[in-house]
C-alpha cells in the first residue's frame, strides 16, 4: 500500500485541507470498525505512540494509538494554522509539519514565490523530506492551494517546483481553486496567470476547481433541503457539503464549499486505499488521462450531491447518477464539456455498482459525448467496493476536455485588461527577483497552452491524418 502526503499552502489551501482531514477521519472511522491501524488508514495517517518521545511510527496491524496526518501546512500568516491548532484536529499535526510566518504575502504572487520562496526554501525542503521519510512507499503529493491569492498561488507554486526537484519520481496532483469572475482580490488575474505557468510546467495533473461552481452546488443543495416538498428531505450526513459526523462541530462560512473539494480528494484516492473489483491507482490517473504532458487539466465532477432521507422514495437510479456526472451542474468548474472535445475520461465508481451497470451507462452516454478521433474509446474505469459515508454508491468523473480552453481564455482576458494599463504592476516589480519578463513569459505560456487545445478542437469531427512515422505498412 502506498502513502500520499498532502501539502496545503495559503489560507484557502489550509482551510480546504482542514476539511479534508476531518472528512478523511470520518470516512475511515466509518469503515474501520475494529480500531486497528490498517493499510488504508496508513495511506494518509501515521500511527505513533505519543508516550514515546521520538514518536516512532507503529506498524500496520496494531491498535490505533495516536494518528498523525501525513501533511505539511504552509502559510505566511498565522491565523488559519493557529485556528487549526486550537481546534479538535490539533492532535493530528505536530510542530515539525508546520511552517508559518507573520505578515502574509499581501495577495502578491511575487512576494510568495520569490521572497518567501527563497527565504524558506531550506525549511520547506526539510519538512517535505521528513514527511517523505515517514512513508514506506510514497506515491503521490497532493498540493492544495488557491490561484488568486499571494501565498497559495506564489509560495504554493514554488513548493511545486521544489517537489519536482527533490522528488522527481513522485506524482504531483494539484488541486487549484481558481478565482471566479467576481473575485474580491483585484490582482487575482496576475496571480493566477503567473501560477498557471508553473502548473503547466511542474505538475503531473491539475484539478481545477472554480469557486462559482462550488457556490452553485451549495445553493442547489440548500434549495433542495429547504424546499419542503415531501420526499425531498435529505439525509443529514449524506450531503456532499456536510461535515456532519466529523470532529469539528460548528460550520464556518466556506465549510460547505470546502467539503466538496475534500470529497473530491477522498474519492480520487478511494480505489488506491480500499479494495474493489477493478482497482485504479493514483499513478494510473496521470498515465491514462494525460495524452500530452502539458495538457493535464482534468475537469472533475462529483455525484450524487446528496441522498434523500425518505427510504420509501425509490433511490435515484444508478443511470441517473451517470447522467448527472456529465451535466454542467455537477462539475467543479464552469465549462461545457459536451460541446468540446474529450481527450480522455475516467469514471471512478464507489459502492455497490457492478461492471454491467458501468458498461451499460458508457454505451448509453457515449453517442452524446464527442471524443477525439484518435481515442474514440477513451474511457478509464475503476470500481471500488467501499462507498463514501452516507451514500450507497458514488461516481467521480475526471475528464480531460478542451472545455478548459474558454476558462483559460477568460482568465487571459482579465489579465490583459489589467496588464494593458500596467495597473498594480509596480507592487510586483518592486519585489526582488521579479521582472517584467515573468509576466510576458507567463502570458505566452498560457497562450501556447490555449493554442494546443485549439488545435485539438479544430480536429473535432474530422479524422486526423496519421503522423508520417506511424504509417502502417500494408
Amino acid at each position: 500500500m502506498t502513502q500520499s502526503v498532502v501539502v496545503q499552502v495559503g489560507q484557502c489551501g489550509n482551510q480546504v485541507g482542514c476539511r479534508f482531514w476531518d472528512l478523511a477521519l470520518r470516512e475511515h472511522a466509518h469503515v474501520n470498525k475494529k480500531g486497528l491501524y490498517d493499510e488504508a488508514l496508513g495511506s494518509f495517517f501515521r500511527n505513533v505512540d505519543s508516550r514515546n518521545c521520538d514518536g516512532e511510527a507503529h506498524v500496520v496491524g496494531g491498535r490505533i494509538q495516536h494518528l498523525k496526518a501525513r501533511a505539511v501546512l504552509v502559510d505566511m500568516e498565522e491565523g488559519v494554522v493557529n485556528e487549526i491548532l486550537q481546534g479538535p484536529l490539533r492532535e493530528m499535526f505536530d510542530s515539525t509539519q508546520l511552517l508559518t510566518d507573520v505578515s502574509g504575502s499581501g495577495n502578491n504572487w511575487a512576494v510568495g514565490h520569490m521572497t518567501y520562496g527563497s527565504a524558506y526554501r531550506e525549511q520547506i525542503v526539510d519538512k517535505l523530506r521528513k514527511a517523505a521519510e515517514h512513508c514506506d512507499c510514497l506515491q503521490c503529493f497532493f498540493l492544495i492551494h488557491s490561484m488568486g491569492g499571494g501565498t497559495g498561488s506564489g509560495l504554493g507554486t514554488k513548493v511545486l517546483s521544489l517537489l519536482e526537484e527533490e522528488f522527481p519520481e513522485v506524482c504531483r496532483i494539484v488541486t487549484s481553486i481558481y478565482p471566479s469572475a467576481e473575485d474580491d482580490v483585484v490582482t487575482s488575474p496576475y496571480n493566477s496567470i503567473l501560477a498557471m505557468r508553473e502548473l503547466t510546467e511542474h505538475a503531473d495533473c491539475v484539478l481545477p476547481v472554480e469557486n462559482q461552481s462550488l457556490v452553485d452546488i451549495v445553493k442547489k443543495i440548500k434549495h433542495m433541503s429547504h424546499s419542503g416538498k415531501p420526499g425531498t428531505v435529505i439525509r443529514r450526513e449524506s450531503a456532499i457539503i456536510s461535515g456532519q459526523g466529523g470532529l469539528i462541530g460548528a460550520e464556518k462560512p466556506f465549510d460547505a464549499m470546502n467539503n466538496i473539494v475534500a470529497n473530491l480528494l477522498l474519492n480520487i484516492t478511494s480505489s488506491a486505499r480500499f479494495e474493489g473489483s477493478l482497482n485504479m491507482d493514483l499513478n494510473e490517473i496521470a498515465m491514462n488521462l494525460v495524452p500530452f504532458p502539458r495538457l493535464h487539466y482534468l475537469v472533475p465532477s462529483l455525484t450524487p450531491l446528496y441522498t434523500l432521507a425518505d427510504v420509501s422514495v425509490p433511490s435515484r437510479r444508478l443511470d441517473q447518477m451517470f447522467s448527472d456526472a456529465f451535466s454542467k451542474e455537477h462539475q467543479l468548474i464552469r465549462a461545457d464539456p459536451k460541446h468540446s472535445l474529450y481527450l480522455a475520461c475516467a469514471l471512478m465508481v464507489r459502492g455497490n455498482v457492478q461492471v454491467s451497470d458501468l458498461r451499460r451507462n458508457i454505451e448509453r452516454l457515449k453517442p452524446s459525448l464527442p471524443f477525439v478521433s484518435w481515442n474514440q474509446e477513451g474511457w478509464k474505469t475503476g470500481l471500488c467496493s467501499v462507498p463514501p459515508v452516507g451514500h450507497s454508491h458514488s461516481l467521480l468523473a475526471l475528464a480531460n476536455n478542451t472545455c478548459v480552453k474558454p476558462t483559460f481564455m477568460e482568465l487571459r482576458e482579465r489579465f490583459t485588461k489589467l496588464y494593458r494599463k500596467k495597473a498594480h504592476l509596480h507592487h510586483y516589480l518592486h519585489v526582488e527577483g521579479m521582472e517584467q519578463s515573468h509576466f510576458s513569459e507567463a502570458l505566452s505560456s498560457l497562450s501556447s497552452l490555449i493554442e494546443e487545445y485549439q488545435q485539438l478542437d479544430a480536429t473535432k469531427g474530422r479524422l486526423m491524418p496519421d503522423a508520417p512515422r506511424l504509417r502502417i505498412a500494408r
Partner: protein
Amino acid sequence: MSVVTVQLGQCGNQVGQQLLHSLLCDAQDGQRKELCTASRERFFHQDTHGELVARAVLIDMEPKVINQSISRAARSGMWRYGETSHFSQKQGSGNNWANGFCVHGPAHREVVEELVRREVERCDRLSGLLAMMSVAGGTGSGVGTYVTQCLRDVYPKSFILNHLTWPYGTGEVIVQNYNSVLTLAHLYQLSDAILVHENDTVHQICSQLLNIKHISFADVNSVIAHQLGSVLQPALTADSQGAYSRNPL
C-alpha cells in the same frame, strides 16, 4: 500430470482464484473417484495436514488483490494458497506496460523464478505452466510478458499456456491498445499457446445466455473458469486406456 498456475496482476489473480475454486468444486461433485483424484492431483497438492494447497504462484505489484484472493480461497474451507507462494510490491505498475516489462520484471526476476521453481519441484510430473493475465493493464501485461520470457528460458522443454483476458472494446483502460499490442508482440514468440477470453463476449454470455441482470466481475470470472475447466480437467481419450494420463496442455 500437474499444472502450475502463475497468476499475474489484478485480473490474473481474480480469474485464477475463481478458476481453481471451480476446478475443485467440479471434482467434489460425486463423480468417479479416479477423476476426482486425477483432477485434484493436477492442480493441488496435499500438505502434511491433508489440506489441499493450490499449485499456484500469485504475483502482483500491489498487495490488495493478492490478499483478497488468498482470503477468499481460505474462506472456502476446501482449499487454500500456499503461505509463501505469493509475491507483491507496494506500488502498482500504473497501467504502464513498460513499467511492468522493463522495471518491475527484471527487478524481481529471481524471486519469481524461485517461487515457480518450488511449485514445479513439488510436482511428480509437470505437464506445463499456465500463466493467467490481462492485456489491458500494466502488471498483467508487462510483468506477465517478462515472466513468460523467464519461464521460457528456465524451462525450455515445458509447455507454456498463456491465458489472456481481452478488455472491453469500449475501454477499461485508455492505453489498453498500447499494452495489448506490446504484449502480443512478445508472446507470439514465447508462448506455446495463447487462450483468449474477451470481456465483451463473456459479458454477452452472462446477459443473454445466463440471464443475469446485474453482471459483476465475479459472474464474468466464473464463466471464464467454467470454460477453462472444460479444457484443463482430466479427460479420457481413445488411447489412454481408462487412465487420466494425457497432458492437457
